[in-house]
């Protein structure tokens, strides 16, 4: 660090900026960010603590390991849909038809695989292709005809539901074979203990590995770098938390493979959104469409990719829910699936107004949503009450988002 004294680092030459280097200063920086409306993951953390206290007080089974394992199974289906919602929300658009799309995909798998005798892989592929096609249609309506996504997907909500009912025919429900790999995946396949413990180490190790590389590069380029202490502390806290969670879940059945698939998809989407040109363009279009266009970004193609990704992930979510329920029915994808997927993304910190969000918001948000739904089910509440409570939670999430946005604007962090 001898160069520090002679020549200031490139990003440290302006004395007006406070640099949070020590741990105490970092904590202060975090509090400042929250005050200015940059809430990050805070609502999720608070939400989970409140939910755990309330429901475990009402019914101790709520925090039992096996109930949490079931919770993770349920998270995966709607969570995958929510990942797609994050993509359209980042652009400031919406897809209201994800529930119907997932229902249609689940019906297609049932009809093509069980009734028509297609190979399972073919049926799944067909459902995903139809999902991509629906997304392409929305993107075309938006790009060429200027149809607001709100209206186009609202029309899609009805049309896709109609198609789902049509292909299911008069019986209305198809049972999937219990012994099949698809149903086993959705109901019983659990990761071996040793593998789950090993995988829980990976995020911490990657964090340290990447942190060290970035640190070396930044110091070599005469830029300031994150202090080692903070890096190791963060990685240690993350690893301990993950290992503890894995240990607790392994007291029950363990980590479902289906949840692992969901987490894997979230990690891939997070990488794409934060570390690729595509992701940067997504946030640019969501922040200022005209500026993005003038920078040479193909805005239409960005919209197309987001709508297609959203519908395809919705179809995948539908397939997962078929495997979870071991059936394709008229009820698949109806009810609160749509709103749960959107609420999960918003609760996790993705803004409805575009330009802000993260793949992990779907991951954390869906855990909150499913925890509420699971807790209410354990209390044996009727679905009328469950709908009202879930609706209230969604409203609160959106209010928090709006207030945080207003605060960000006034603090110059929009």
């Amino acid at each position, binding site marked *: 660090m001898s160069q520090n004294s002679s020549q200031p680092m*490139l*990003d440290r030459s*302006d004395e*007006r*900026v406070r640099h949070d280097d020590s741990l105490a200063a970092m904590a202060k920086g975090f509090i400042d960010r929250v005050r200015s409306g940059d809430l990050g993951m805070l609502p999720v953390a608070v939400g989970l603590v409140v939910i755990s206290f309330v429901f475990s007080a009402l019914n101790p089974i709520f925090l039992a390991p096996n109930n949490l394992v079931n919770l993770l199974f349920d998270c995966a289906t709607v969570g995958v849909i929510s990942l797609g919602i994050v993509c359209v929300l980042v652009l400031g658009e919406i897809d209201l038809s994800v529930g119907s799309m997932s229902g249609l995909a689940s019906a297609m798998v049932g009809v093509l695989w069980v009734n028509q005798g297609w190979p399972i892989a073919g049926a799944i592929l067909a459902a995903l292709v139809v999902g991509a096609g629906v997304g392409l249609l929305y993107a075309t309506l938006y790009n060429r005809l200027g149809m607001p996504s709100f209206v186009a997907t609202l029309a899609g909500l009805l049309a896709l539901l109609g198609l789902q009912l049509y292909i299911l025919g008069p019986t209305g429900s198809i049972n999937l074979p219990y012994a099949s790999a698809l149903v086993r995946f959705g109901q019983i396949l659990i990761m071996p203990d040793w593998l789950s413990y090993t995988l829980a180490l990976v995020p911490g190790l990657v964090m340290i590995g990447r942190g060290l590389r*970035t640190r070396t*590069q*930044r110091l070599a*380029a*005469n*830029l300031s770098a994150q202090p080692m202490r903070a890096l190791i502390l963060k990685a240690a806290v993350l690893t301990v938390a993950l290992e503890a969670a894995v240990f607790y879940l392994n007291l029950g059945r363990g980590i479902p493979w289906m949840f692992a698939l969901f987490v894997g998809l979230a990690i891939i989407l997070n990488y794409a959104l934060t*570390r*690729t*040109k*595509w992701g*940067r*363009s997504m*946030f*640019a279009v*969501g*922040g*200022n469409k*005209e*500026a*993005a*266009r*003038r*920078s*040479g*970004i*193909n805005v239409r193609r960005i919209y197309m990719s987001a709508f297609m990704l959203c519908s395809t992930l919705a179809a995948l979510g539908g397939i997962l829910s078929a495997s979870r329920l071991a059936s394709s029915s008229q009820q698949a994808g109806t009810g609160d699936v749509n709103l749960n997927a959107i609420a999960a993304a918003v609760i996790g910190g993705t803004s409805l107004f575009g*330009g*802000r969000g993260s793949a992990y918001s779907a991951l954390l948000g869906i855990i909150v949503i499913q925890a509420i739904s699971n807790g209410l089910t354990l209390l044996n509440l009727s679905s009328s009450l469950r709908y009202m409570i879930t609706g209230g939670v969604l409203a609160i999430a959106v209010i928090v988002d709006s207030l945080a946005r207003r605060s*960000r*604007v006034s*603090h*110059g*962090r*929009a």
Partner: protein
Amino acid sequence: MTATHSLPAKGQSVIRLSGVSKNFGAVSALTDIELDVKAGEVVALVGDNGAGKSTLVKVLAGVHQPSSGTIEFCGQQVSLDTPAKALDMGIATVFQDLALCENLDVVANLFLGHEMSPWALDEVAMEVRAWTLLRELAARIPSVREPIASLSGGQRQTVAIARSLLLNPKLIMLDEPTAALGVAQTAEVLNLIERVRDRGLGVIIISHNMEDVRAVADRIVVLRLGKNNGIFTPESSNQDLISAITGATDNSVSRRADRKAGEAQDHHGGAA
């Protein structure tokens, strides 16, 4: 970025417009515009509000397509269909509204659409390049990792100018580059324009500030109601310029000047 043409020699045309018109429905914003910008030359576009300056810039930036007329870039006839195409050819623009994404940080805005290593963004290299570029402009940006929303108007202007230089353009267009700037930064921008010119680039600058225009421009092209209305040199008298801009020797500026002169004389006469 692949350069399709090398930089033309000094004195040769970078861009030449002939008969360019642009209609918005029944309104003709530009009519038969002729414009020629040579390498190593600063051309100022002046004109009253609504004279078509910004429309002309947007046509050259690929934002609007001309209704008729031809555009030659480095001696070849081109059609500027999209902003991306204009950028790739080497036409960089600083728009009046700056066109920055407020939710992204300074580095992301500078490299928007032209990020280094698209599949694994090289943030360190981009940040170093950003600091170097901003330092060349003597810019006072506190941190390149803050969102644009937290910057002042002048700082945003600097970021927009820095962005236009990033891709080593052959022609750079600045729409009101000094409007939001303080005294020192205005001087820096004017210095910068001269440095860019000396590197052999063509520069088009739009400004309402005649002082700035005279300071850097080699030629002053006047637009009035979407048409060419004369070409002047910085040595031309203020009166000639203003009458070309307003379209009459008897205009509000000259009337005001006459009135002030009259008042001063009366005052003088009264005191005597």
